């Protein structure tokens, strides 16, 4: 690591002020950032820890939605998001216990790793990303691998999930990292079905519109049996070709529908 300063504000306002300093970097659970620092791949002047802000912690449900504080850890979502079982299950399957007891939902969504799990849930749920400045719909929020609508210094304070009638997340593990090689989150709402895919695309998390249309008309695995995503644009690497990932998108979507239905 290079040397850096460290501050742990106790309010969003203080955190925003600290983020206004030159080369300040927000620190959620640090599950990506700390290894990056250890490899000397980043050189922030100050780390602004978001772990001491009470108003960014915790889970509340009511009015058909679930609101999760931006600094809430995966383990807490796994244990406390009973109102949204598919989301709780997703959180309980991220990484390993050490990761789940440090990593946060806000950190994951801000980083937007193309193989992370939470982006699939947020996008498929049509979640709202709440920041210190504004509210951003998931469809506008995710803008490609490691790219989001967040401005410099903007902090995710909460994420608001509308509760679907049925939902499920299926993850096919990359053998080494055990990140999602392909992860598909299917959420069925009264006004239609949303399908979001993580891990597979060079553009990061994406919605599979063709499957959504078919499933909105008929929420069964059979409804999408003839559908496939194009291999072009999928990630191809030492763990699997583009066409393999495209194939897995179909398989995981079917399994998610079967599990949700």
């Amino acid at each position: 690591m290079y040397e850096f300063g460290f501050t742990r504000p106790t309010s969003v306002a203080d955190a925003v002020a600290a983020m206004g300093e030159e080369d300040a970097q927000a620190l959620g659970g640090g599950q990506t950032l700390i290894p990056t620092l250890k490899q000397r791949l980043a050189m922030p002047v100050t780390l602004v820890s978001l772990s001491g802000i009470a108003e960014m912690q915790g889970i509340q449900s009511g009015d058909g939605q679930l609101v999760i504080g931006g600094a809430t850890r995966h383990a807490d979502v796994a244990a406390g998001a009973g109102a949204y079982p598919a989301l709780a299950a997703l959180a309980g399957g991220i990484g390993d216990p050490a990761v789940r007891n440090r990593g946060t939902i806000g950190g994951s969504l801000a980083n937007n790793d193309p193989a992370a799990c939470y982006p699939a849930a947020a996008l498929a749920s049509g979640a709202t990303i709440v920041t210190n400045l504004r509210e951003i719909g998931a469809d506008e929020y995710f803008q490609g691998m490691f790219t989001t609508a967040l401005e410099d210094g903007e902090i995710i304070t909460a994420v608001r999930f509308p509760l679907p009638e049925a939902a499920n997340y299926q993850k096919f593990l990359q053998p080494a990292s055990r990140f999602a090689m392909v992860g598909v989150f299917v959420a069925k709402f009264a006004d239609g079905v949303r399908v979001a895919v993580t891990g597979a695309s060079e553009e990061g998390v994406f919605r599979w519109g063709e499957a959504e249309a078919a499933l909105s008309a008929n929420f069964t695995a059979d409804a999408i049996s003839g559908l496939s995503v194009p291999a072009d644009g999928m990630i191809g690497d030492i763990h699997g070709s583009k066409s393999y990932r495209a194939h897995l998108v179909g398989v995981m979507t079917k399994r998610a529908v079967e599990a949700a239905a």
Partner: protein
Amino acid sequence: MPKDIDAKERGIGAATKRREDVRFLTGTGNYTDDINVNGQAYVFFLRSDMAHGRITSLDTAAAAEMPGVLRIFTGKDFEGVGGLPCGWQVTDRFGEVMQEPAHPVLAQGKVRHVGDPIAAVVAETLEQARDAAEAIELDIEELPAVIDMKAALEDGAPKVHDDLTSNLCYDWGFVEENKEAVTKAFEEAAHVTTLELVNNRLIANPMEPRVAVGDFNRATGDSTLYTTSQNPHVIRLLMGAFVLGIPEHKLRVVAPDVGGGFGTKIFHYAEEAFCTFAAKALNRAVKWTASRSEAFMSDAHGRDHVTKIELALDADNNFTALRTDTYANMGAYLSTFAPSVPTWLHGTLMAGNYKTPLIYVNVKAVFTNTVPVDAYRGAGRPEATFQLERVIDKAALELGVDPIALRRQNFITEFPYATPVAVEYDTGDYVATMDKLEEVADLAGFAARRAESEKAGKLRGLGVNCYIEACGIAPSQLVGQLGARAGLYESATVRVNATGGIVVMTGSHSHGQGHETSFPQVISEMIGIPEDMIEIEHGDTANTPMGMGTYGSRSLAVGGSAMVKATEKIIAKAKKIAAHLMEASDADVELKDGQFSIAGTDKSVAWGDVTLAAYVPHNYPLEEIEPGLEETAFYDPSNFTYPSGAYACEVEVDPETGKVSIERFAAADDFGNIVNPMIVDGQVHGGIGQGIGQALLEGCVYDEDGQLLSASFMDYAMPRADDVPFYQVDHSCQTPCTHNPLGVKGCGEAGAIGSPPAVVNAVVNALRSAGKDVTHIDMPLSPARVWAAMQG
């Protein structure tokens, strides 16, 4: 666990719990990184990020002025110092010795693989050393890299070493005199099965990365190296004599607790020589601890063979000849024992468990711009076993016969058996191990289990194979003829203290094998005293006799035998003392349960009375024997040992994703006599785990420019607990080794040797059960590869 586990409370055959685990499991081990020498400085190595290039400028002046920097070393500092030596010289099929390039401690002029060390910054702290390394001004002219072995041998290919004639290290034929007869046998064969396969490149990844701490005592002129090694005496000899010019009596090498070796900690590495050299140059201890990223690009890798194997059979399905054509990757330099792995540890095993009369093995060893490749658990024998046991399965498919029956038909059944590849198996019973396997694996129940899997939408497959290995490495005279530049005996000093306790100083080294538990069991059995009266010391050249260390499943067979020989001397002398005390003839003295007695009388003296007399010789036959009770023995075996066995793997394949799940794994091994059955189980479990890792998960991959794509655990898949099943392990088939005093054969590598073909055989079997015309898939059998194979 087999029933014999609790059969005995102490001594040979008892399942004594591992005493070393108390410190390993409670965080009180003493690993090399736990060693901190007063005033130590830290080194950071600037390593090449290019696979191949010419250093056009290297300016350390500005970096040397950075805070905390003591000195920056480059290749220039090592111009007068020997390079890292290779311990084995192979002679090729034309009678010429192999091409042997220099292996500098720090790069001289060129870099030859990603990770090749260029400069070493020594500073007060590691972070200061890293800061300074970033300030070094370095220009490298990138040269085209050679990665693919066959491309490396083409005319005009870029040369890894400019001063060699080509990238060919050697072209080895074995047995060269058999070549024509083998060719003729193939012409006359009723059936020939051919298989081309890859034995995937692996990175050992012991839990503990490599560490070196060099120290120098200005007052005495003595150097000390603390290092993560499987063989400290070998490091002392190689580094002292060939690299730094320090005689053994001025150099101490200590390998304390070592957190896993698996072969990759056998070798002498540049970082060890550097820390020892720099400590003297700076008069400061110098410490290096590898990061995991450094381990990936500087630990010797394993395997990496590309092979075409052909099996000839007669009309009755008898094997008549075997021919192989292998390319073996050496990497950019010759690691310590690299040339021996694809030759003498591989070609000599190609007979396997079968009476194939004619065998010819060709191996072309190739230099590439990759990390050096050397021994990894099994070393050559897994490569031999994999290709042989795969081609037999393929032959069974082509001939429409049962693969187990085809193996049984061709088993060697008479021992001793001289193979056509220059070794003589002393004992074995391959029919018995296969019978035992069929029982413990419940092969009769496979069809029902397959039906259950199919109901669940899964494809179930069964894979069976045999293996043989040459362990207990090795007879010195034989390996000397084969090109080894070292002897391969082992040593032990048995020191009996006045009050009867014993310390054994062994040249073997334990880095997970449990010697501190199993070695005392042997002495306990011989003398009849409790195991906790016996301690094992190892790993420090200052207090152990010259020994060759631990690898090749040799510790008990060779090191244990040396300990037995030394203990026999102790007992002989103790009997003389006891005879004196009892006023009898030593020929009449018996030793049982720690008591010396005279048969037919009520005279007896206890072990402790005799040991006390040895050190307080008031009433003692000083005119006949010396006081004290301490003996040393060196043991050099007359042959290898030949453990063997049969393994069975059952897999389920998800037909939609290609994901393989190992449902059952059974092993029936013949290790000869067993000292601690629990430790043997553990060794087999670990070996199978690594074999499953190779078969399903692990793959070291370079891109065409020589960048290491699998450079971290994000991309290099190690087996985890949920990747492996509970194993059925049996070692009740025991044909004792005939030439060592314990009758033991060695068990450390068997699991890693025997398991990969079982897994691949099982997956091919599963896919064929669904009508897929698949005959082979290269390892690792990742979901993507299995799915691709199913698509045809």
